[in-house]
């Protein structure tokens, strides 16, 4: 069973080196992915994450536990990435229309003209064969940065919507719009992938 972040925090504070390595193993890779959605290159993302780990060590003493350890660490990361990054334009409103499904797939009355193709069983089969995860990782990188950030935190890291809003400093409504668009795009990519192999 995975040790809770709370137990890990106790060990960290008592100066346990292995606790720090466990924390890094748990969050380093998702932090790199998240950082990369803010900054222009993997090398810069790597730097931001390294800086974050040092900031985490320095800040441990003062961490009051008002948020979860993960939320605290990820917030430090996002703050640093935002200061460093130029890729993300925060001012872009999320209100631009971006339909979940191509409008051409509906008839004039708004009913399906080109209904969703079935792909769930095929995807499950390929996932179990270990041949889908890399594709999904590649698709994640195709999502617009802000959608990608929310999908990483909600659907891969399984944070709550409140935690995601705190980490990214966005409103609950924006969080939901970005999540909806990101998931809708991914669903379409699954459909496209398995339409091709028919």
């Amino acid at each position: 069973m995975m040790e809770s972040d709370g137990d890990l925090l106790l060990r960290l504070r008592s100066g346990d080196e292995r606790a720090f390595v466990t924390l890094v193993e748990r969050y380093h890779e998702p932090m790199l992915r998240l950082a990369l959605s803010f900054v222009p290159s993997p090398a810069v993302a790597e730097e931001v994450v390294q800086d974050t780990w040092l900031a985490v060590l320095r800040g441990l003493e003062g961490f009051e536990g008002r948020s979860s350890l993960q939320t605290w660490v990820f917030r430090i990361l996002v703050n640093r990435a935002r200061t460093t990054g130029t890729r993300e334009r925060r001012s872009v409103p999320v209100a631009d229309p971006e339909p979940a499904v191509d409008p051409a797939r509906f008839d004039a009355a708004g009913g399906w003209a080109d209904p969703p193709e079935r792909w769930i069983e095929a995807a499950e089969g390929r996932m179990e064969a270990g041949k889908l995860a890399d594709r999904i990782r590649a698709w994640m990188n195709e999502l617009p940065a802000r959608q990608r950030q929310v999908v990483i935190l909600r659907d891969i890291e399984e944070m709550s919507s409140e935690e995601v809003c705190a980490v990214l400093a966005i409103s609950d409504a924006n969080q939901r719009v970005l999540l909806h668009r990101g998931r809708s795009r991914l669903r379409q990519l699954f459909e496209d992938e398995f339409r091709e192999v028919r």
Partner: protein
Amino acid sequence: MRLLRGRDLVCQQAVELVTAYLEGRLSRSARRRFEAHLAGCPHCTEYLAQMRETISLTGRLAPEDLSPQMRDEFVELYRRWKSEQQ
């Protein structure tokens, strides 16, 4: 096709409500209309199942393991920080 009543959803509207539905953020009346639409629409039922599957598949991406070299680098980082403390 079912006869549309004034407040019935069409498919194109239903697909935009999926996330709010899964998040439990629809009002009671909106949820009722959404579920009523699903009950009569196999395509939107399939669509909802595909959105759930999308979430499930994404959630199964395991973080890649740290390389032994990176592990060592972090042990090094920790020890350096520790020595600065004293």
